[in-house]
Structure formats: structure tokens, C-alpha cells
């Protein structure tokens, strides 16, 4: 009785796809993320697009550190150095050789891998806090090396390199402005990098990395080449963070030693801990934290001064912060946030999410 028309066959096809997706919801989730990413810059404001692009960049950097610390048990307080190298490789290639930005990403990645690998060699002899200290020194030294006279003609010294005029437009006459296009480029690279990260930690090499983290003597007994895996992990970790740095050169369109101070290294570290050590998607939560919580803290510090003034109306001898001094409290509020977070969720936001999911599952059954 039924005749097949184009309409019904389309409906049938959609229906079939929905059923497949419902069964394979990992794939469905991935497609949803793709769609969200494609639509997002079209309906968001420029500044919000900019912030989310920055968030993705931080997430890549944090994922890089997480590979090293969360999956291989090596500490680093120096990832701002690799971020800086990635950014500078892109910036120097763009200004000196007029290279298109896209080509500079893989080169930045390769250079950072080599740097990370080489730094991983001496790091083999250092464990725990000693390694943290050595990498800390790397973070301190990098901004100064960038100002060093022999490389000044390349790096632009303290003045840095401005790239506004080199920022790529959307190709093929696509109707996107620079914010939108930068987001799409970053989004694509983010998907690639997280795909690589997931694949790595679930591969044989990933298992070897984790085995070294959990018990390096046992790992060695099972035939894992400790030094090779540790240095390689350092290289891969630096590669991720370097790619993030390279993208940041595109987004900010300006590199300078002041952009890569130790505070950046600490931010990446905080992002990893907050997001959850040893959990790759936690990088997004960590990035969310380091990007937006300082801004929120600024508003809270401001609100706090108004609140104190309100109390003063009732209790006259209550101390006043004053609207102006409230500005200085931003850091304190941020610190309080961080302490509370670590206290309430010792395993980061990842732990909290896991707990919530467990509770939810238990409630259902």
C-alpha cells in the first residue's frame, strides 16, 4: 500500500540516524559539540567569542600539562615556557618569513616537542618537588631569554612583536569576521588535540605512562623503557602547550615577554588541579576557572566593599574597605575561592562531577 516518496524516505533516514545516535551516544555527543561549535560564534558577541577562544587555548595547554602530571606523575611549574616558545615560533615565522599562520602551528608543535624532549633528559634525574623547582626556573628564565640581546632582532626584545596586520582573514571569501574565524581555527585544532590526547592515554603508550606514574619499579620490571617514556611524555606535553601558545599568538596578535610570566605557569597548573588531575576533559573546567574566576573575584571584591559599608551603617566601628581599596582585594578573593575549592573538592571539579554522576545513577536504580 505504502508508496515511497522522497519525504518519507528522508524522514526514515533521519529516524534511522536518530536511532543509531541514540544507541551510540558518544558519537551523538561529538556531533552535538561540533554543531554547537559551528553555531556558537554566529550568535555570540565578539568579546564572548574571544573569551571562549581563549578558554579553548587554555584547555589545550592544561591538557598538555595533565598528560605529564596526571598520567605520567612528573611535575611542572614551567609550562609557560613552552607556551611562550609556541607563541614566539609562530610570531617570528610570521614576521620574519611572512609565513601564513596555519603553517606555523605544526612547526611550533615540532619545536616545542624537541624542547620538551630535551628538557625531559635532565628532568629524568629529578623527582617530585625537585623537578617542580627545575621547571620553575625554566619559567622564570624564559621571559629573560626572550629579551636577550643576540635574539632581540628576532623576538623584538621587551617590545615584543605586534601581529595585528598579519592576522589571517577567513579564506575563500567566507563571511566570517576575524573573531569568528579565529574561533573556528582554534575549535578545529582543539578537537584534533583532544582526539590525540584521548587516543594517547587509551593506547599502549598511555598505559605505559600510567604504569610509570603508579609504580615505576614495577613498570620497569614489565619491560617499559622508563627514560624513553618519561622524556617522550615531556616532549608530547610541551607539544600540546606549544600548540596552545601558537594559537594564543593568533588570538592576541601580540607576543611579549610580559605575556609569559610565571603567573601563566601557575595559572596552567591551577587549571589542571581544579579541573582534575588525570582526567582529560577536566582541562575545559580548569580553563573555565582560570579565565573567569579572576573576573568574578573582581566583582565580588567590589561587592564586598559595598557590603562592609552596609554593615557599618549598623555597627559604626566595623572596618571599611572603601571602594578604591576593594580593587586590591581581587587576589585575596581569588585565593579564598581556590582554597575553598580544594577543600571542598580535593580531586578537582572532575571528582565532584564523578560524585554527582554516581549519586544520580544510584538514585535512578
Amino acid at each position: 500500500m505504502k508508496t515511497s516518496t522522497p519525504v518519507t524516505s528522508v524522514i526514515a533516514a533521519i529516524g534511522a540516524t536518530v536511532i543509531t545516535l541514540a544507541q551510540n551516544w558518544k558519537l551523538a555527543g561529538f556531533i552535538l559539540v561540533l554543531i554547537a561549535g559551528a553555531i556558537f560564534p554566529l550568535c555570540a558577541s565578539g568579546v564572548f567569542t574571544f573569551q571562549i577562544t581563549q578558554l579553548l587555548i587554555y584547555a589545550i595547554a592544561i591538557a598538555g600539562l595533565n598528560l605529564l602530571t596526571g598520567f605520567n606523575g612528573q611535575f611542572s611549574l614551567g609550562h609557560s615556557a613552552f607556551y611562550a616558545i609556541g607563541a614566539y615560533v609562530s610570531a617570528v615565522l610570521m614576521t620574519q618569513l611572512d609565513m601564513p599562520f596555519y603553517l606555523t602551528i605544526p612547526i611550533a608543535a615540532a619545536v616545542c616537542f624537541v624542547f620538551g624532549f630535551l628538557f625531559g633528559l635532565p628532568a629524568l634525574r629529578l623527582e617530585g618537588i625537585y623537578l617542580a623547582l627545575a621547571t620553575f626556573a625554566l619559567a622564570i628564565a624564559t621571559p629573560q631569554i626572550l629579551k636577550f640581546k643576540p635574539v632581540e632582532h628576532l623576538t623584538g626584545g621587551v617590545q615584543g612583536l605586534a601581529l595585528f596586520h598579519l592576522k589571517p582573514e577567513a579564506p575563500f571569501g567566507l563571511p566570517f569576521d576575524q573573531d569568528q574565524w579565529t574561533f573556528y581555527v582554534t575549535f578545529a585544532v582543539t578537537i584534533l588535540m583532544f582526539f590525540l590526547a584521548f587516543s594517547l592515554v587509551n593506547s599502549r603508550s598511555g598505559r605505559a605512562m600510567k604504569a610509570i606514574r603508579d609504580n615505576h619499579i614495577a613498570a620497569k620490571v614489565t619491560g617499559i623503557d622508563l627514560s624513553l617514556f618519561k622524556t617522550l611524555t615531556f616532549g608530547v606535553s610541551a607539544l600540546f602547550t606549544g600548540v596552545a601558545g601558537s594559537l594564543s599568538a593568533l588570538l592576541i596578535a601580540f607576543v611579549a615577554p610580559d605575556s609569559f610570566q610565571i603567573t601563566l605557569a601557575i595559572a596552567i597548573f591551577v587549571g589542571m588541579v581544579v579541573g582534575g588531575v588525570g582526567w582529560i576533559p577536566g582541562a575545559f573546567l580548569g580553563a573555565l576557572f582560570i579565565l573567569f574566576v579572576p573576573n568574578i573575584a573582581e566583582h565580588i571584591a567590589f561587592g564586598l566593599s559595598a557590603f562592609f559599608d552596609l554593615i557599618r551603617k549598623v555597627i559604626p566601628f566595623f572596618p571599611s574597605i572603601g571602594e578604591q581599596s576593594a580593587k586590591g582585594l581581587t587576589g585575596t578573593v581569588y585565593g579564598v575561592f581556590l582554597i575553598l575549592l580544594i577543600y571542598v573538592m580535593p580531586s578537582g571539579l572532575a571528582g565532584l562531577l564523578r560524585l554527582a554522576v554516581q549519586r544520580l545513577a544510584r538514585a535512578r536504580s
Partner: protein
Amino acid sequence: MKTKKYGKKYGMIPALALGFAVAMAGSAFAQTPGVTDKEIKIGNINPYSGPASAYGTIGKSIAAYFKMVNAEGGINGRMVNFISYDDSYSPPKALEQVRKLVESDNVLLVFQPLGTPGNTAIQGYLNGKKVPQLFVATGATKWGDPKKFPWTMGWQPNYQSEGRIYAAYILKNHPNAKIGVLYQNDDYGKDYVKGLKDGLGAKAKTMIVSEQPYEVADPTVDSQIIALKASGADVLFNATTPKFAAQSIKKMAEISWKPVHFLNQVSNSVGGVIKPAGAENADGIFSTGYLKDQLDPQWKDDPGMKKWFAFMDKHYPDGDKTSSFNTYGYTVAQNLHKVLLAAGKNLTRENVMKAAASMKDVDLDLLLPGIKINTSATDFYPIEQQRMMKFNAKENRWDFFGEILSGEVRGS
């Protein structure tokens, strides 16, 4: 084992949530830039936290200044809404905060963003958007380039022109000097050294006998001072920030080295540098100035200075009355106040830039007598005049001498 499975299974959730949150949050903003009949929105970024947070008080004193303006009825009937965000002296953060100011707060202009790196990061963006980047808080020489950046204007005298003033003085009064240079190893210190060398011209090579840089993170400059003395220099050119300036003056007294001493104006605060170093050790030091020093007794009865003290008492009571950053903030805010008054009722970004670029002999409360602010369509350097001065330990103050000097360094 179990938790691990959950981690894997629900791994996509945060990414998804992010996607949704993001898709829903966006919206476009209207294009009216920060002016209504009742309000003018002015944006600012300052390092309230981080390594350069000592500068934060500049932003606070500007906020206090506009509080005073509002208490007195605003500007042409409009209240000033001064929105200032923390950029922690980080260029990426500076760009993010400035974009927030322009795109979500819809400010009329960005005023006094602080620091050379941060300003470089936002310059391309603000000029692309045609938003005024007015009176940037840096002494670098590159901020007055109206051809390339018609929306960016500097304010304070630039470091290079000050270096040239000392060079001219040295050439005239100490033609056979052996010059030792102490400088901070960053753009600020290097700009001063460039000004000095350009001013000395061909003689720079033979006259400068030793150059000693230090890093801002160094604990002291003792070893540099000793090396400079050992070099046989009889003139010291001292391009250091306050902490190091005080250290160097003290150390020189300790090792009784007494060269002719030129101290950059960044560090010529009587309260912040000379007093901690010991006024008797600073006798005879040369410097230049363009602002009155509130700790200098000669301005005690000056009407402009009295106004400033009254302002501090009333509107910024927890501010430090000995800090030169607070006189600086007050003065630059007063300059913007005058520009906004001059731009009149019809406040557009173009009009503000036009008013800023046509200041004629503008006088401000705390400018040294005789120093005036002048700009034109081709001159985007508001303060170009300075006076030389010599420290008088007996009176504990700077004595001005000579005429008003004009820096000639423009563009880079």
C-alpha cells in the same frame, strides 16, 4: 575500576554543557558608545594585582577624581561612570578586559591603560574599532604617531627626550666626562639609555665608560654600583625605578663615590626615594620634573597643591599622600576632565579625539609653573616640557634652574 568507567562514559558531558551554555549566552550589543544625557562611560585597565600592582593606586586616584567631579555636578550635566578592570600587567588579559569595556560595557573611550606591553596589545584593536586610547600611562616614545594610530595618544614626557636633556647638559658642562650608566633591563631603561646616547651623538662611544644593567627581580644593585665606581666614571646616569634608585644612592654614600649624578624623574620623589636613601646622601643630584612634588615644602602654600590635599582627604582618604602616583593620577584625570569639557555637549569619539588633539596652553593644578600642555593634529605628545632641578639637602627639596626645556623626540 568503577570510577574510571564513569570518567570514560561521561567524559563528553562537560564539553556538551559548555557548548550549550555558549550557544545560549551570546547576544549582540547596541552601537551607542557610552554617552547618554545623564552619563559618560569611561573605561580603564590597571594592574591592581600581579607584579606591577604598585601602580594600581593610579587607577584608584583617577576613580576618586571622577567621584569628586560627580559630586560637583558632573561634566556638562553628565555623570562620569569610570569602569576600571584589573589586567595584572598581562597583555592577553589587557586585551580581554579592553574588549569587555568596549563591547559589553560600551565605553566612550579607554583612558590611561597602563604599561607598554599592555598598550601595544590593545592598540591595534582600539584603532581598528576607532575607540580613543587616550593618555596612555607609559613613557615609551611610540605613542604619538597619529598617521598610523590616529586613536592613540600618550601623555607624560617620554623617556628618550629626558635622556637627551641630560646628554645636552653633560655636553655643555662636563665635555670631558667619563659616564657610567645604570639601567633597568627592559624597555623603560633601554629607552633612557637610547635617549642619552642619541643626545651625546658621536661622543657616546668615548664618553660612556661602563654600562651596568640590572633585572627588576634583582634584590640589590650593590655590585653594579661597585663596578661603576671601579670603571673610573665621574658622571652617573641613573635610570632606575624607585627601590633601586634609593639603594644606589645609599650604596654610593657607603663606598664614598661622588660622581655628578643624573637621576631619572621616575625616581625623584622626595618621600619615596630621597628620604629612604638619606637626604644628605642625595645632595646635588640632578633630575628633571614636570609635576609638583607634594613632599617638597616649597609647594606648601601652592593653591593647586592645596586642592590636591583637600581632594585626597575627602575622596581618597585611604590613599597614600606621599605617593607620586596619586599626584600623577589626579593630574591626568584632570586633563581628561578638561578635554571632555572642551568636547562640549556633542560627545562622540571623533569629537573627543579632536578636543584632545587641539589642547592649547592647558594648565593643570600640579604642573610645574610655566609648563603647559599643547597638542595639535600632528602633535600627539601632550607634555613635552620639563625643567632641570638639583637636590638641596639643606632645604630638603629640589631647586629648579635654567629655563623650561622641550624634548624633541617623536615617533620611533
